[in-house]
């Protein structure tokens, strides 16, 4: 199975992390999370399980909302969104994320776009998956320069959601809010513990010999390369055709 594309492992891992959700929302320019959600939906469909609903923000086709851009947040506040994805220019070992910028706020350089809905959704969506392909010390820092949204909250703060896992181009971590901190769950094929330790600016727990991230089986891979890539290409045509080129290269 050396022909598995690294992003196929990410997509399959996301589908696994989402197992059990009824409704997952995905940001506008998040093709890999979208593909993971679509793969889960296809797997459930094949198994005759209850359907998985996917809302892709900013998409016309996958927009099930009719009350303007506030509806995503209302819907999450009602407990009707089970999973969401967040990234960040910086993510630290307490699960804090920074989408605003580097340096002494408010004078940030570079300045990133801003916090979007993170300061709310991180609190009210039960399964937030932190997803960032780039795995480097500039992204995974000891302490973020600006906390767009905190990974954990004091006792007594209303919080029904938070980080469940961190998925990068090199590895998968789980999050323990009691400690708080990340635990390395598995390494993607071709990546080692020392490499990940060097690329990560915060400490994390890990086994002496962490397992490899689970690979998709043949049937899952066929579903992903067939039905899912077809569905994905409707919303992310460039991403889908790039993936197809690289798989067949």
């Amino acid at each position, binding site marked *: 199975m050396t022909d598995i594309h690294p992003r196929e492992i990410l997509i399959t891992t996301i589908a696994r992390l989402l197992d059990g959700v009824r409704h997952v929302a995905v940001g*506008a*320019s998040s093709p890999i999370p979208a593909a993971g959600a679509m793969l889960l939906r296809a797997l459930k469909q094949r198994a005759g399980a209850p359907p998985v609903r996917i809302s892709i923000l*900013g998409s*016309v086709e996958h927009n099930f*909302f*009719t*009350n*303007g*851009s*506030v509806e995503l*947040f209302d819907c999450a*506040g009602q407990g009707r969104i089970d999973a969401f994805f967040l990234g960040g220019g910086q993510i630290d070992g307490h699960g804090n994320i920074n*989408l*605003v*910028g580097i340096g002494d*706020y*408010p*004078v*940030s*350089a*570079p*300045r*990133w*776009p*801003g*916090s*979007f*809905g*993170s*300061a*709310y*959704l*991180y*609190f*009210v969506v039960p399964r937030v998956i932190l997803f960032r392909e780039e795995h480097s010390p500039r992204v995974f820092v000891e302490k973020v320069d*600006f*906390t*767009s*949204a*905190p990974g954990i*909250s*004091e006792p*007594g*703060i*209303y919080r029904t959601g938070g980080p469940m896992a961190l998925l990068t181009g090199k590895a998968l971590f789980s999050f323990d809010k009691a400690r708080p901190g990340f635990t390395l769950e598995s390494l993607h094929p071709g990546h080692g513990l020392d490499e990940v330790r060097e690329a990560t600016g915060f400490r994390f727990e890990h086994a002496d010999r962490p397992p490899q991230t689970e690979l998709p089986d043949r049937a899952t891979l066929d579903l992903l390369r067939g039905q899912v890539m077809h569905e994905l290409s409707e919303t992310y045509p460039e991403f889908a055709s790039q993936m197809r080129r690289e798989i067949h290269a």
Partner: protein
Amino acid sequence: MDLQGMARRVEAGMQLALPVDYAGVSMAMTQALIAHGAGDLDLFCVPTGGLQVDQLVGAGLVRSVETSAVSLGEAGGAPRFNQAIAEGCIVVRDATCPAIHAALMAAQKGNPFQPLRGIIGSDILRFRPDWRVIDNPFAEDSDPIVLIPAARPDIAIFHAPMADRHGNVWIGRRRELAAMAYAAQQTLVTVERIVEENLLGNEMSAAGTLPALYVTEVAVAPRGAWPYGLWGEYATDTAEILRYAKAARTAEGFAEYMAAAPAGQLQESGR
């Protein structure tokens, strides 16, 4: 009404509410606002900003931006906005999307504030002395919750597919445009076309209509969201936004692009 006439309603120091890039940005008004030249504007992005914000900042008309984010989407960061922040020459009031919506909802209801969960522990809150945290009076134990004060922008500006001769505007399911209009003192709308039938005349079109009651003026501006797209009408011209992003990396490039832009836009409008 023409765009220039509408732009003259904007006075220096006013707060303008502007919609997110996919909801219906009146790019046609951007040019008119720059030509008009009223400065010291406070922009209120519902809930994020893009090209329009970047161009108004680049033209030196902006004093502050309240927003949950500013970017050019696939074309990357907003160059003039980011430069202005690095130079410290605009004030940015960082928010989070639902807080922007909450501020408009408070105004819509005539309320001084609207509560909002989340945010506590975020640096956004730390830099917003205008927001308050109270203890939820309905909880038995301590339960802090954020209150967002009402935002009552002077003028809301957006672009929509159509209006009728009574001033009713069809906004479809982009109800944040209605929220902006409810909250604002004045609402200026550009549209692709004026239709002859009364949009409130049948239940199907009425469902997506912002009543004239909330609309100050309407002007026709075909392809008025370009280079952004307009839902149900035309797609975003990503190549043009990339061209802008590249040009606007420097102040000079921005000036050159903007000097050439009206012609480009008129050409587009003529299609």
